[in-house]
């Protein structure tokens, strides 16, 4: 089970919350290793939520867990991942004279590795809001 997609790394509120708890802590690591796929692409490649896949390009490779989104949430052919070490290991250092690496829109190979366990979403800290 293999496919090719275009990766869009970006910010998410869960990633922001995880970051505040600590970049070396489990929550941040889990959020930044979750790859969101469109429903159509997941069907095409044969992937389900919680599957562990290898994503790779000419720069590097890493293992992440799949989350399949509802139809229409992501254009077909695209995948989303919150910024973090896994997305970084696929960024090219070339900035085309701008200082800014092309951090969105890189072509990646997605390959099924094994079935994974669906993890519980950790909610943000409860606070008393008056």
């Amino acid at each position, binding site marked *: 089970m293999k496919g090719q997609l275009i990766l869009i790394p*970006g910010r998410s509120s869960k990633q922001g919350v995880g970051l505040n708890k600590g970049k070396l802590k489990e929550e941040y690591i889990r959020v930044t290793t979750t790859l969101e796929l469109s429903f159509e692409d997941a069907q095409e490649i044969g992937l389900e939520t919680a599957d562990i896949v290898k994503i790779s390009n000419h720069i590097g490779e890493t293992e992440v867990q799949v989350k399949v989104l509802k139809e229409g949430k992501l254009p077909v052919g695209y995948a989303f991942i919150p910024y973090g070490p896994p997305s970084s290991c696929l*960024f090219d250092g070339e900035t085309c*004279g701008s*200082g*800014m690496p092309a*951090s969105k829109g890189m072509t990646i190979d997605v390959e099924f590795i094994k079935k994974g366990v669906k993890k519980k979403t950790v909610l943000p800290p409860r606070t008393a809001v*008056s």
Partner: protein
Amino acid sequence: MSAASKDIKIVNEKIVENATCTFCGCCCDDITLTVDMDKKVITKAKDACVLGKSWFLNHVIEDKPIARIAGKEVPLDDAIDEAAKILMDAKFPILYGMSDTVCEAQRHCAPIMDDCGGTIDTTTSVCHGPSGMAFQGVGEPTMTLGEVKNRADFVMYWGGNPAEAHPRHFARYAVTPEGMYTPNGKDDRTVVIVDIRHTKTAGVSDIFLQLKPGKDFELLWMLRAACKGVDIPNDCKDICGVEKEVVEDLFQRMKNCNYGVIFFGMGLTMTRGRHFNSGALMALATDLNEFTHFVAKPARGHGNVTGADNVVSWQTGYPFGVNFSRGHPRFNPGEFTTVDTLSRKEADAALIIASDPVANFPKPAIDHLTSDKCKLISIDTKNTPTSEAAHVSIQTSTYGINTGGTVYRMDDVPISLRPAFDSPFPSDLEVLTKLRKKVNELSKKANRPYATKKYM
């Protein structure tokens, strides 16, 4: 609860009114913090969003050394001496970060690099650096968020996801607040989202344009052409993924509003086209001033990244990517920006302040930064992959929670911080003041022609 126990609670609790959250560029300065002064933790952060709450409530005073060299605990002054020596001995020292500290600390960074003939760069180079370049090319049709709240009846977000990255941007500044000329809040505004993904932000929009990835410039240029009377092309959908009629309707709304604003994010600056995209967007906002009042502003991420741009600009004339090796500031993105100096393996010493390139940079840059070819110095408030990989690591207190100072909101409005409680860790200001003094001493000793006191 008895009166006595109530009293005990009050003695141990401190309320900080109008505290500023520095997690994101919104810099909300209306947060009420409840602080448990015994445990030194914030227990409530009234009015903060989910990110702000996690920023305040997860802040704990960690039990770890203030300074380490090669993983071993050392006195702070030893770490500063070692850091100064590394920077002075290096052939190509770089300084990077600065977006999560106060302006008072940031102002010591350019002089440090000036004295050692190095290169200073901020996190702007990997977020809105292209916008910074575009400002120089086409100017910035700017405003404050107060103006937006009171006047804007057309609000557009392009390539950004404020619902997740700046959660209070809608409620405090741009979408729902009741303003002087927008008394009915959202009912008085048209909210347009342009993105390639149907994000949470898209959910609040009146109009959502799902653009073909990488086609921002094309749509912006069509709208610019429309300002000059050129028709939207019939094959608009093939070009950018949006129907011709939708773009025509959008253009009419932009033209006919009373006060329009476009906030743009990294979906625009990080994709193909980079500074051409930001430039096209700001030029569009300028063009629309032929018809109405129109402004544009980048939605900045880190709490004081805007301050970093301002401070480096007033000191050197340029916002980021500034090199001092010839004794005067030179600006050249692509040459003096950190991803480039690291990916090309040029930098042999890196002072990283309040940022985490080891977690966020492209792999070739991380490989060099963590190699023995580049001595890494980290000054940060938290344990991060960068602080863990650093040869010299200094832990500082957190701005806005433990230390005061000034930050710039994303609209360049300076805001004073109200810290909640003290920290045993030194402030960035204290550490950078000492480091600057030490580097200046060494620079003078070495008879560097540019060892000066001009920024003192």
